[in-house]
């Protein structure tokens, strides 16, 4: 019996030769990360054990991206803990405000997470990097503290569900729409504790940014990891980021699932039938075609986050907003995920387009996605957001509402002041 890509990567990080779903393993970690919310607990736990040294100062990233630039005094104190720990242990990959970006956009961009790697992060959207063909998953702060000390993490080897996407995407349909649609089909626990392997001609035709969006939201279906077999698109992306940023660890390995690998389930979709999607409150699984969202007036639009704050996301938003204006009374908030994306958006004129459309163009931050800052919703307010969760009170008041969508739908909705299909405005 063959192995899936997930099983192969896990097997390469343990001493045992064989591996089966359900096995408990202690695996070697190639890279780990924490942010200004999760790392402070990990740092406290690390100190409590009396540990003197981290396992490898080149394999840890500390990224203050959630409540930064510090939104209040307590947040400033938490961010300071990261800086001090990084200084004390000479952690190479600490990113201060000004170099910082939303972690799951920043690490791939810098070439710090690579195909075939095993990555853990104290953040649930760590599953994003599976788009590169690595095993990557979210863990807790205590897990991160253990990884700091030992460079290892415990796992239960997951079964894999294969998601096969046939056909060609319609205009205005993106990776975000595919993942919202998929979660709509299987539910928020449809892949509970399982690996989600995304494949098929429609996936192979997608650029990296869309693939990151898809793997990013595997957690919203309960998945342990999302993963896409690396191909030419992956390799040319990885080679380009390595050339540009010259990370110390350059080696990577391409894994593919065996033909006779075992899957818990196989789901097949014809993407040519999928419309742009909107996930209604209060679960990502409440996905509907955008045409079903009639007369839903909005107060705010957020374009950004680890799901959709990349350059192609800003590009499509700018294309729709160019020469148009956000409707009076709608707050349009655009947050590039990293400083490199920010600069690129300035260079290509997107920033100007956003400001001329009546929007704000912010410094990178997770900000409003989790109701932190930079766009909190008041009681009764509604936002369309390119983020990943629309739980009760996620972006502010418990009686506010978040509708999840792609950057194209978000931009069109800003112009109309209600949820809108991009073809209505372009």
């Amino acid at each position, binding site marked *: 019996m063959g192995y899936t890509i997930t099983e192969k990567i896990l097997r390469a990080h343990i001493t045992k030769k064989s591996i089966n779903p359900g096995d408990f393993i202690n695996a070697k970690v190639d890279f780990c990360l924490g942010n200004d919310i999760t790392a402070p607990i990990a740092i406290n736990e690390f100190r409590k054990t009396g540990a003197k040294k981290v396992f490898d100062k080149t394999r840890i990233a500390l990224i203050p991206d959630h*409540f930064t630039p510090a939104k209040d005094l307590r947040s400033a104190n938490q961010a300071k803990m990261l800086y001090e720990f990084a200084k004390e242990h000479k952690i190479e990959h600490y990113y201060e405000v000004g170099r910082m970006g939303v972690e799951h956009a920043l690490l791939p961009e810098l070439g710090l997470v690579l195909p075939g790697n095993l990555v853990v992060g*104290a953040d649930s959207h760590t599953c994003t990097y599976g788009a590169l063909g690595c095993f990557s998953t979210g863990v807790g702060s205590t897990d991160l503290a253990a990884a700091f000390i030992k460079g290892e993490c415990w796992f239960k080897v997951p079964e894999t569900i294969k998601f096969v996407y046939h056909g060609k995407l319609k205009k205005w349909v993106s990776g975000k729409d595919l993942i919202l649609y998929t979660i709509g089909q299987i539910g928020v626990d449809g892949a509970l504790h399982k690996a989600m392997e995304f494949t098929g001609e429609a996936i192979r035709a997608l650029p990296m940014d869309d693939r990151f969006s898809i793997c990013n939201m595997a957690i919203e279906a309960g998945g342990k990891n999302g993963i896409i077999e690396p191909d030419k698109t992956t390799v040319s992306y990885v080679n380009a980021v390595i050339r540009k940023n010259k990370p110390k660890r350059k080696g990577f390995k391409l894994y593919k699932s065996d033909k006779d690998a075992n899957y818990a389930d196989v789901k097949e979709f014809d993407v040519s039938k999928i419309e742009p999607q909107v996930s209604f409150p209060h679960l990502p699984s409440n996905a509907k075609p955008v045409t079903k969202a009639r007369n839903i007036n909005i107060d705010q639009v957020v374009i950004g986050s680890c799901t959709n704050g990349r350059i192609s996301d800003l590009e499509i938003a700018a294309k729709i907003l160019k020469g148009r204006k956000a409707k009076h009374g709608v707050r349009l908030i655009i947050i590039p995920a990293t400083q490199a994306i920010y600069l690129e958006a300035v260079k290509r004129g997107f920033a100007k387009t956003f400001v001329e459309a009546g929007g704000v163009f912010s410094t990178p931050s997770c900000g409003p996605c989790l109701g932190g800052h930079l766009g909190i919703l008041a009681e009764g307010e509604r936002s369309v957001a390119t983020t990943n969760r629309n739980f009760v009170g996620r972006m502010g008041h418990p009686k506010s509402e978040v509708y999840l969508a792609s950057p194209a739908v978000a931009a069109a909705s800003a112009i109309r002041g209600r949820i809108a299909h991009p073809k209505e405005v372009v």
Partner: protein
Amino acid sequence: MKYKGKAHTFGDNINTDDVIPAKYLNTQDPIELGKHCMEHADKNFAKKIERGDIIVAGKNFGCGSSREHAPIAIKGCGVSCVIAETFARIFYRNAINIGLSVVASSEAAKAIKEGNTVEVDTHKGVIKNISKKKEYKTEAYPPFVEKIIKKGGLLNAIKR
């Protein structure tokens, strides 16, 4: 371990923003986090909890973010144990890692009602509904997880 307390029931997909909204994540203090526990799902939850009480919920409890503040808030407000039909994976491992007992039992989670007095014996794998004189089997912890719990949490378990 044995726990006994009054049941507080919740539905499916109770997420970590329900357990502890992100606006409180600028502290790590269990007592302070505990004051806001389950605020989005039940505004008065933290006030009505008595030490040792038990949360009983449906499917996918703890879905959403990786914030360890969620099990810390539950422990911090005095809840002794969570029974659910199923648990989201990061919440489940976080609870194990910090020593909050989490017990999966579909049968018990469906049958126990708000206010019932419940007793959980994690070693024997038994949940008793004392109010209704009913008994349910729990899914036993896998031996690997049992070892972490016996050592008193993950960091104690990895110490040489």
